[in-house]
């Protein structure tokens, strides 16, 4: 049974409530309380929240964490709670999309995220995110419980803020997750990767020496976040896709500063409005990135904040960068992209997994080895699917691609690197990959074909050594728990 129901609306007391972060948390707490960890005691926004995520992750646990009393930089306890690990669970993300088996996300995700429902525009009076409005000198971003995540980070960052810009030519909006360093009461940095639609929009204004109207929205139902983070065409609004993943029309409201030129989700928790001044750059970073390394300080634009609006008793959302908290959603999308592209060329493809261990750089492809060469064909087909994926590991159908150890076993025992490794220099790579040499703008991609030779003829075993196994008919009736008490497992020694 699903942890979280994928219903268009929550019906409560005859009212239809639009999906939002707070009703997701309510529903999670009612239906699966073990997956919502409430921290009732004060917890410091400097390192402590992120350290808790690392601690639980090391133990293989990824509950949504709700920090009721985050401690601010000045030592005060914030009245605004912080939620983290919102999308750290593959199971919860798949539930939200109606994908019953999280192992089948590669096949199912694409079908779920391409639906579109047009948004509905409501008035400011109807919009929960306008319940509290601060303008001009009343704006103070330092009152929000921004998290200081890692050593050497330049400061506290908005990490779960979706930056809304628009295409100067068509007016079509775009929203994307962008990190923003909070530099003062009404000033933030803003960083966008050079290949993003956000940068295209910013550059169009900069080319006319015009300031860029922007807004950042923070905190929404995770189903909305899935649609917001989709990789769509340009120019294309993400809002109809957010409606598609939510199963209901997304409610939008014009911003205080820009009117209907820049609209924001009316059921978000917090909105920050402002302008990016034309062609103005400042030092930004260093910042702990998704790669697991601290990205260097770079020249980047800033945002002059003009207005902050939020709901009464807002909830602040933070993504721990480089942890499953932010990787799971994106990795699901990459799996779907690779699966649909490679499957069209190689029907023998069974499944795809983009493992957390490789951040976004590795993809495991499982296929039915019907003929020689098919493994290398799959590597070549998969590499161009997503620019951040640089290494493809192709394995047989007996390998569990959701188990890093099994994939490495296949690499150890089914490859000779002089003939099974593809090395393809000069391809597209992530600029954040610390191993990409300077000043190259391209890098080396490749893959390992860790499949056994195919059977000599259909119906026969693979032409290779047989894998150790206990006979199937014996295992059908065997249960280890006849010989030990499962409760004693925690006391037993491990391989360490």
């Amino acid at each position, binding site marked *: 049974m699903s942890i979280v129901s994928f219903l268009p609306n929550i019906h409560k007391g005859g009212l239809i409530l639009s999906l939002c972060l707070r009703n997701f948390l309510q529903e999670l707490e009612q239906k699966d309380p073990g997956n919502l960890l409430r921290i009732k005691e004060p917890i410091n926004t400097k390192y402590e929240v992120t350290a808790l995520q690392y601690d639980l992750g090391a133990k293989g646990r990824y509950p949504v964490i709700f920090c009721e009393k985050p401690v601010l930089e000045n030592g005060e306890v914030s009245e605004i709670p912080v939620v983290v690990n919102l999308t750290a669970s593959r199971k919860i993300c798949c539930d939200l999309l109606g994908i019953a088996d999280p192992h089948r996300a590669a096949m199912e995700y694409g079908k779920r995220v391409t639906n579109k429902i047009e948004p509905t525009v409501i008035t400011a009076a109807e919009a929960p995110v306008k319940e509290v409005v601060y303008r001009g000198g009343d704006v103070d971003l330092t009152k929000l419980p921004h998290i200081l995540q890692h050593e*050497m980070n330049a400061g506290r960052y908005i990490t779960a803020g979706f930056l809304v810009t628009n295409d100067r030519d068509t007016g079509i909006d775009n929203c994307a997750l962008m990190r923003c360093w909070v530099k003062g009461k009404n000033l933030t940095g803003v960083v966008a990767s050079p290949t993003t639609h956000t940068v295209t929009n910013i550059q169009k204004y900069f080319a006319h020496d015009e300031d860029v109207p922007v807004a950042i929205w923070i905190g929404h139902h995770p189903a909305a976040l899935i649609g917001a983070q989709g990789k769509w065409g340009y120019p294309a609004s993400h809002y109809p896709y957010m409606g598609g993943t939510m199963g209901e029309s997304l409610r939008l409201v014009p911003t205080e500063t820009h009117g209907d030129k820049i609209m924001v989700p009316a059921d978000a928790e917090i909105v920050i409005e402002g302008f990016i001044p034309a062609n103005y*750059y400042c030092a930004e*970073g260093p910042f702990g990135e998704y790669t697991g390394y601290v990205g*260097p*300080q770079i020249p980047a634009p800033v945002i002059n904040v003009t207005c902050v609006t939020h709901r009464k008793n807002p909830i602040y959302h933070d993504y721990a960068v480089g942890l499953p908290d932010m990787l799971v959603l994106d990795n699901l999308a990459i799996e779907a992209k690779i699966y649909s592209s490679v499957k069209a060329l190689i029907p023998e493809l069974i499944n795809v997994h983009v493992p957390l261990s490789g951040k976004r750089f590795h993809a495991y492809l499982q296929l039915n080895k019907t003929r020689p060469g098919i493994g290398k064909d799959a590597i070549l087909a998969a590499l161009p699917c997503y620019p951040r994926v640089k290494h493809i590991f192709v394995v047989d159908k007996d390998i569990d691609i959701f188990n890093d150890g099994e994939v490495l076993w296949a690499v150890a025992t089914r490859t000779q690197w002089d003939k099974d490794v593809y090395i393809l220099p000069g391809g597209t790579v992530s600029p954040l990959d610390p191993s990409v040499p*300077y*000043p190259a703008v391209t890098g080396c991609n490749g893959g390992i074909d860790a499949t056994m030779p195919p059977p000599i003829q259909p119906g026969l075993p693979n032409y290779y050594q047989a894998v150790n196994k206990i006979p199937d008919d014996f295992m059908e009736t065997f249960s280890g728990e006849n010989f030990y008490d499962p409760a004693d497992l925690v006391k037993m020694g491990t391989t360490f």
Partner: protein
Amino acid sequence: MIPELGNPKYVWLRCPNCNQLFYVDNDFWSHKYEELLLHCPYCNTDFNKKDCKDIWR
């Protein structure tokens, strides 16, 4: 440039105020950003590249 020392695409330096080590992108030495101040993530001081005694690039 010492190929075995660090990664040459980043410039390691020491903050002239607090002496902590951190790194910045090579872009700061391009003509476009020549005048841009650097920012120390440890002591929050903004400083000019020229005031930096130790730079590895």
